[in-house]
């Protein structure tokens, strides 16, 4: 009797992410009327799935990774804006290909959606709309709930927390320094785009350092560079560039702070040594 253990249904944390992102996609397309189309959303998602299947076959992967590809497709739908279906498809291909091309020790160097966004923006082929969600109180609650649930299940809430606290400190600190009323930093910190970035872009276990301290360092660097780009260089896409730049050093952090490998079916804060 004592040896009996209740069987627990293990749900892949990516399930919560997919549910959250699909919810946001529906709201974005039909309530907020984003500057994109249903056709582009379909092309983005199918593009990711097809590219993933193709690379899985090419690299003879026994187990496909279509869930992650679906997440990438939804992320691109929410974040990336292009003028054509062709560029939308190209973004999907770039995002998935980056996972295979820039890979090390079973991980990928860049968040796939972020890689595609930065490459296309850099070459003036696409743009992001940071203001598309506005600052609605009720939608902010929705982001907090779904985003919080997602990072809780994936046990990556620490990264989200460190990033947001660092970024918020810089935003509020700057407001205090210049003498802005607190309504201004509050307005900037309740942006739907910032919340989505916090919960879904920077918490990807496959492209962030394995060791907790490494992740905190990673999050703080992204927050610092992102804030600098926003406040000093006035770039609305600064956070995406910051994540890209800091990601270039993830392998170094993993090399210095050795830790285990994250498994989706056995999520852990400290990572598991496989």
């Amino acid at each position, binding site marked *: 009797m004592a040896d009996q253990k209740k069987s627990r249904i293990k749900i892949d944390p990516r399930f919560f992410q997919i549910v959250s992102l699909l919810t946001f996609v529906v709201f974005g397309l039909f309530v907020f*009327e984003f500057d994109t189309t249903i056709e582009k959303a379909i092309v983005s998602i199918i593009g990711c799935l097809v590219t993933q299947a193709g690379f899985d076959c090419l690299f003879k992967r026994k187990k496909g990774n279509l869930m992650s590809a679906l997440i990438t497709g939804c992320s691109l739908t929410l974040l990336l804006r292009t003028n054509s279906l062709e560029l939308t498809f190209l973004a999907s291909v770039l995002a998935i290909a980056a996972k295979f091309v820039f890979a090390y020790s079973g991980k990928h160097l860049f968040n796939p959606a972020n890689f595609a966004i930065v490459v296309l923006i850099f070459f003036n082929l696409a*743009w992001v*709309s940071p203001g598309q969600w506005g600052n609605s109180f009720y939608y902010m609650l929705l982001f907090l709930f779904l985003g919080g649930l997602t990072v809780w299940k994936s046990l990556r809430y620490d990264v989200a927390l460190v990033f947001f606290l660092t970024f918020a400190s810089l935003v509020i600190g700057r407001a205090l320094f210049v*003498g802005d009323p607190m309504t*201004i930093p509050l307005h900037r910190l309740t942006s739907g785009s910032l919340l989505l970035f916090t919960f879904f872009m920077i918490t990807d276990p496959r492209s962030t350092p394995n060791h907790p301290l490494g992740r905190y360092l990673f999050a703080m660097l992204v927050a610092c560079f992102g804030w600098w780009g926003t406040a000093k260089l006035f770039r609305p896409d600064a956070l995406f560039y910051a994540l890209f730049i800091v990601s270039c050093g993830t392998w170094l952090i993993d090399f210095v702070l050795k830790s285990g490998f994250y498994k989706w079916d056995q999520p852990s804060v400290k990572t598991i040594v496989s």
Partner: protein
Amino acid sequence: MRLIFILSLLLSSVSAYCFCGFYVAKADAKLFNESSQVVLVRDEDRTVVTMVNDFKGDIKEFALVVPVPSVLEKEQVHVAEKKDVERLDAYTSPRLVEYYDPDPCNTRIYEKDMLAMSANAPGSLGGMQNEKAKSLGVKIEAEYTVGEYDILILSAKESGGLVTWLKQNKYRIPDNAEKVLKSYINQNLKFFVAKVNLKEQSKTGFTYLRPIQIAYESSRFMLPIRLGTVNSKGPQDLIIMTLTRKGRVETTNYRTVKIPSGQNIPPYVKNDFGPVYKAIFAEQVRKEDMKAVFLEYAWDMSWCDPCAAEPLSADELKSLGVFWMDSETSEKTIPSNRFRPAPGGAVNAFATRLHVRYDAEKFPDDLMFQETTNKENFQGRYVLQQPFEGSVSCEAGKGYKEGLGRRQDQEAITLASLTGWPVNDIRKKIGRPGSEDDKPDDKKPNKWWKKLWDKDKK
């Protein structure tokens, strides 16, 4: 005591006109009260800002104070022509398209050209005298006369000194302005201050003050609206017309929302478009809780369809600050169709028209923009479908009449949804049956229960 309005406390005037010779209506001259107009030209980090002044008071009282990113040299300041801004305003205004139903017994399609409404906006006002500023921490970085304006570029070490200097020079500064000025000073911004040089102004022969243009280079792409909310008694309107090379401009710290467009609305609006659009805009502002910036127009300036005004030429665009005109050749192809191209060949410019109603509570932060590569064309456009008024005696005509009633009902419902007006009021205007009570007795539904209890009530 001289009065100073800082940047954005303006009255507006509106005119509606048709360039195809069909005079339709002239909307109320003050359609959007407390509104202002700005033209922003931007490419990479280079910016040209044109601020429209339509000040109606004593020009000695006029002054304009604008935060700028650096000390501007005399060559960076220019006085523009009001007509150029009015042209762009008319060109980008929300418009009506009028179609005529063909004779159902003899089908041909007619299309009439459009109506346009525009809002041009006056400018700030105030007065200024030079005073010894050094002791207050205020430094006059530059001083010159451009056109009918005397210009000062000020820097300040602290906001209290700047406010004191302005008050000593007989400006009535609202108390809250000091906090906003402090923020700009701490961000190392300078202050562009303009007053009217009466002698130069009399030489111009104009009875109004012309728009001021400033050109500068800065990674900031923004409009400082906070100063304009300080002394405001309520929400204000700001119409921002941008001209860029790559594509559409949008705000990055507020939602940019498209104004409803393409709907069929009742033909009576032809003579009432001003108040109708005012109501449409107000309803959209209400739906977004006054937290959004509205897109009214986004279009490649090479062509237009329909054209609310004559397309702007390359020279006109250059006078508005499009500085890349000289280096661009007309390599772009103009669509070879019935749509009207720009005179003189293709122009490489994209126009965006943004309209925002704001106050300090809903818009605490200055407007921040970005230029995107979004080339999708959009325009605020409403459709009038005039019914065929001739005699209809054929079989097809019967179906047309029945369908016409349903279409008119739908148009009334659409207009009600757009404006927030009661649909029955609209139905009455177009002569459609409204509520059940408006119907003749023999058409009303049989309320049999009235007979059941009426005698008990007696």
